[in-house]
């Protein structure tokens, strides 16, 4: 057995005599023949019977993603607004968020462990750090692409700089901001599969418990990608909802 760094997490299959990848307690309770015993590519019956094992990790995964993306979004947009006003801030912030993006997630989790310990924070800090660059860059580009005419019209209506930002510039930059948010969200769902290393659980947890049972691997992979797809679609819908003028123009 190869003990993992996370306490109590073991790669169970090596010690297991009944079927590759299955935990010993499962094999004692169930007859493992047929698809499961032969480790078929995907055993529908097993997946249907054991689906409840994945429900908890699924929602934990969603929780990790939601906290990470929301935190990253707030920080990135705040940084973008700051550098929209002070242009000189943009290059160092782009560089800094780029450096964060380069740190491999596995290394990032374990670099934080001595500082933040096992748990949610150690998973959320790297995941939100990875979202910063794409959201920051897209927000900045979105704000820069606002037509000068629209800003002039706003000023002509007597708007203050603050009103101009909230009522003209940010709404017109929304498509780019959401495009960045979509990329960040989808990537975060995928990387959160490693959050178990930080002791935060998620869909990586059932995955690592049965590492060579094909049905388990595929089920985790499909659930993760399904979550990414659904969140992506929700963001597309959200964009249509918050930018109704674009629908009119398209129609």
């Amino acid at each position: 057995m190869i003990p993992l760094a996370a306490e109590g997490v073991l790669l169970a299959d090596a010690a297991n005599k009944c079927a590759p990848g299955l935990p010993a307690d499962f094999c004692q309770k169930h007859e493992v023949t047929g698809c499961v015993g032969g480790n078929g590519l995907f055993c529908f019956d097993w997946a249907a019977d054991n689906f409840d094992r994945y429900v908890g990790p699924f929602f934990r995964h969603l929780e990790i993603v939601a906290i990470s993306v929301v935190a990253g979004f707030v920080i990135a947009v705040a940084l973008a607004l700051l550098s929209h006003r002070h242009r000189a801030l943009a290059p160092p912030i782009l560089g800094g968020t780029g450096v964060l993006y380069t740190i491999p997630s596995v290394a990032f989790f374990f670099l934080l462990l001595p500082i933040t310990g096992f748990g949610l924070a150690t998973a959320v800090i790297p995941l939100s750090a990875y979202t910063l660059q794409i959201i920051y860059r897209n927000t900045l580009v979105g704000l820069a692409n606002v037509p000068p005419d629209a800003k002039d019209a706003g000023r002509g209506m007597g708007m203050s700089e603050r009103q101009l930002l909230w009522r003209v510039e940010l709404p017109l930059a929304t498509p780019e901001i959401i495009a960045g948010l979509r990329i960040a969200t989808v990537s975060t769902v995928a990387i959160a599969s490693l959050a178990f290393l930080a002791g935060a659980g998620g869909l990586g947890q059932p995955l690592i418990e049965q590492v060579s049972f094909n049905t388990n691997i595929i089920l985790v992979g499909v659930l993760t990608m399904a979550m990414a797809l659904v969140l992506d679609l929700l963001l597309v819908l959200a964009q249509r909802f918050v930018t109704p003028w674009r629908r009119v123009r398209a129609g």
Partner: protein
Amino acid sequence: MIPLASIIDAFVGAFDFILHQREAVTGGVQVGGPEYIWTFARTQLEVSAVALAGALAVALPVGLVLGHIGKGEFFAVGFGNAGRAVPEIAVVFLLASLIGIGLGNVALALGILGLPPILTNTFVAMRQVDRTTVDAAEGMGMRPWEVILRVELPLAAPTIMAGIRTAAINIFATATIASFVGLSTLGDFITNRSVYGDDGVLAGAIVIAVLAALIELTLAGVQWLVTPRGVKLQRVTRSA
């Protein structure tokens, strides 16, 4: 909150593990030190290099041709977007389970993960090349492959290189996970706390992060080198 002193202790211990050999926690063997760590780093670099070369050999020609003829946008761009949603650890585990472990098989799994960013960036970069430039090249009597290699590829090189950087970093990062399926990469230090101790785990994380940064810096340098002088000048005048 963890006290500052113990955080400093942890990092001092990790650097000691990187610099000096010591007895393993489990006893008997000597672990740690630069030479010991290098053997794991070399495996990780080797498997990453093979995977990147494979991904390049497949995705680059496909992206160049599709971008040149301007077809397959849905495939080239959609593949890149879908690729982001794939949990890398599941791909590595599934391929290890189906075709077994070993350097070649892990390189195959990593190579597949490297395809989307290279393909998408190559396609997009080729489409962004100014059409009038391509028309001029064709008007001069260049053959299609000459247009691709001598006009479009140089102009598209910076964006293509950005895709290769993304792929290289993804591949190197995921090669860490290969230690879960038995290939002795730097991830070994992280998965075997019982052998290497806390110092070894943190040392592994530090070495992985530093190597990733070095790869990124090297490729950023290559990107600068492959950017045609005209494009660099254009950027300078545009930002001025």
